[in-house]
């Protein structure tokens, strides 16, 4: 039992803390000597030399190097004294820099490492509307021109009664008939507004008017094939992109939320 305790890191830690505490208690000060040690080692000196070379295009003399080192020591002393006096508090520059650093570290931690098919399939099933293959339309349209709605309706009534579509069709170089065409391609030809109106119509006789930027159209849908469910193979790259983009955004929010949960936040005027 004792043997096991001796190997336990927690015990080491507590033991160490006890020793430090005992030292301060015995010496009557709360001064940690490590806080007052400054070591300029070889790598620090190298760094100072490199900086000098970049600015002056030659190596520093010994006197210059000594001055650099003294400057470094002075900076470090004032830096630590400033921290002891709490000068880092309420300084917007320091605050902003620490914020940037922290956010950078957090975003590094949460970088994604990729997903396997199970995860992607699950993501797909959770967002069926994003990956459903679009419905396909078989339809015919004739362009009635820039005419008002009541006039257009009259012509459509005549079409329903059997009038020849050619007698109303105004010239426009968009195709007259479409076979198994998806909404996005219809919107390419006629604009979003046309495609949206088409979605509300049922297959059957002449219908409309549907209004596009060109003017009024009469439309006859012969078949509407509902959108099929895509397989992962169809859309894998898109799913992977969406999954990882969303994950990254979510994890950013999550890591803030995780930290935020530790805080008790009140805002005047906010319930």
């Amino acid at each position: 039992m004792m043997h096991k305790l001796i190997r336990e890191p927690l015990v080491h830690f507590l033991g160490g803390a006890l020793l430090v505490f005992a030292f301060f208690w015995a010496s009557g000060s709360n001064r940690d000597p490590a806080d007052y040690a400054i070591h300029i080692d070889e790598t620090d000196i190298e760094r100072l030399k490199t900086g000098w070379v970049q600015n002056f295009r030659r190596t520093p003399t010994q006197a210059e190097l000594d001055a650099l080192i003294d400057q470094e020591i002075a900076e470090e002393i004032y830096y630590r004294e400033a921290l002891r006096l709490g000068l880092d508090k309420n300084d917007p520059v320091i605050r902003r820099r620490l914020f940037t650093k922290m956010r950078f570290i957090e975003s590094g931690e949460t970088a994604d490492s990729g997903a396997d098919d199970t995860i992607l399939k699950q993501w797909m099933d959770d967002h069926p509307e994003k990956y459903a293959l679009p419905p396909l339309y078989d339809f015919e349209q004739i362009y009635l021109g820039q005419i008002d709605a009541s006039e257009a309706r009259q012509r459509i009534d005549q079409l329903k009664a059997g009038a020849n579509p050619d007698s109303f069709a105004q010239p426009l170089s968009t195709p007259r008939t479409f076979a198994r065409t998806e909404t996005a391609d219809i919107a390419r030809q006629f604009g979003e507004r046309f495609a949206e109106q088409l979605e509300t119509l049922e297959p059957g006789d002449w219908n409309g008017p549907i209004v596009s930027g060109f003017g009024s159209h009469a439309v006859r849908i012969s078949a509407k094939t509902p959108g099929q469910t895509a397989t992962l193979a169809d859309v894998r790259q898109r799913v992977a992109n969406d999954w990882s983009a969303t994950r990254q955004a979510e994890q950013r929010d999550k890591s803030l939320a995780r930290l935020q949960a530790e805080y008790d936040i009140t805002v005047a005027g906010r319930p």
Partner: protein
Amino acid sequence: MRKTLMLAACTAALALSACSEINNEDGGGAEIANTEYPEQVFWGDTHLHTDNSIDAFGFGNRLDAENALRFARGEEVTATKGAKAKLSRPLDFLVIADHSDAMGATKAIMEAPRIALLTNKFLLRWHDMMNESDEGSLQVTAELIDGAAKGTLPESLTDPEETRERTADLWEKHGEIVNRYNEPGKFTAFMGFEYTPMPQGDNLHRVVMFRDDPEEMGDTIPYGALGSQDPEKLWTYMDAYEKKTGGKVLAIPHNSNVSNGRMFAMNKFDGSPIDAAYIRTRALREPIVEVTQIKGDSESHPFLSPNDEFASFGVTGWDKCNLSCTRDMPPESYGGSYVREALKRGLELTLSVGANPFKFGMIGSTDSHTSLATADEDNFFGKHSANEANNKQRALEPQNLGTREGRFGWHYLSSGYAAVWATSNTREAIFDAMMRREVYATTGPRMQVRFFGGFDFSADDTADLVKAGYTKGVPMGGDLKGGGGQAPKFLISALMDPESASLDRIQVIKGWVDATGKSQEKIYNVSWSDADNRKPGGDGKLPAVPNTVDLAKGTWDNATGAPELVTFWQDPDFDAAQNAFYYVRVLEIPTPTWPVYDALKFNLTLPDDVIKIQQERAYSSPIWYTPAA
């Protein structure tokens, strides 16, 4: 579990390209079939900056290439300044063209741990300023642009060896993102960059775009103007790339309007007259020019084309001083700054030197620095992130961009896009269409423009214009030779963008060299709306189309224009002995500019000098006529 681990290892290691290949195979990339002739026009932006551009990041842009690609594909993203951003319609392709000089540098300076910069006072100061505030970040950007113009950037940003490693790493990661969003048949993502020389602040910028997949590009990294400001050196880099990899690459000059006459100068960078070797290389390397974008329109200028009542579009604010506004641009310099004049110079050089360096097609693109490729007036996200859609002062504030003199927000255009007649939506087909110049420019609206030239057309061919065009003639960007002395004939159609405005007119702009060896130009109105009532006057000018813009609502009446214009036209002033070019300009009816939408949204009063109404337009690539030898 094992698979997850393997993927994790792939991402962690730098073997990214190998991993993305695996993904592509899983994605089931079926071969995309090419159509027999270009049936569809594909819309894109060849000139978009993300947070990897030193100035874009400095201006505050925090959206990366992935966000830029998602936005272009039609996804909603959150812009840097917090507004939700979505295109009304997706684009078909995108070239992210970040500045090659110090690519990724501002991002690296800002995000670097402070300790790593302690030895470099210059960068440390910038790091601190950038982290301090948005204003500090803007100031750093101004200093960067100024430093680049004056050649006083710190060595750690300009030294090729020092930057090579950082750029190669960044370029490889960029290629991986571009590949993930490239979906042949649906959306094409190109590799590219911007080469940004500006001697004395004169703009000689080019976008460079590659036909190849990132993994085929070997250890190629973007070429910087810090390597050389002489575009011929860029062409040498392009030659070397093609020789080494077997790939293909082209360059697209832009903003000739602020080049102080140097973009289409009659001499080389060193001042010597251009010669046959220069001409051959330029014609091969620069098949297209970006004629319209955020920083103005470069088609022509009223000084050069006094008889063209539409030549002033996008000129205001851009014709007085060069890009950095360090030098005034006298009107005498305009000849080397505008595209129509360059096309004319090309004809003159064809006669004097025997070849044409300015035989290019035309596209538009955005040059947006927000990662958001917007060109619609009512959905404009500005030149850079400090001027996004939720900045209500942006139309009226001076926009110094690191320069000493003010241009105002409203001088910037919500323009433009590149239209490409290609046989499929793939890297290969779109790039090849650009090489053969079967492309056109628009200032934003997606009107469909067809333009064919030939000697065997008749007026009846308008009934099946596309078929006749391809079987009996050449499309835009093509060449007509000989013809047995008869005047060339043209089939032209323009279909309005159903989500924009109807059409005022189609014009043919002809340039030729007269018997004295001097180039000339003439504009023909060839088809227009309400032809029963609008009759050309004695000077050939048409009465203007009515202006129906309601500034209080931001609306207009499409009934005053034509949904579509289709025509057959034959040159009435043809001389078979004279070299000539013909291109088409399509004008929409008048519509409001983006500041009008800002004024409505933010309840602003726009001063009188702000341009509030414009006629958006398309410029086709030319068709050239050369006399039989």
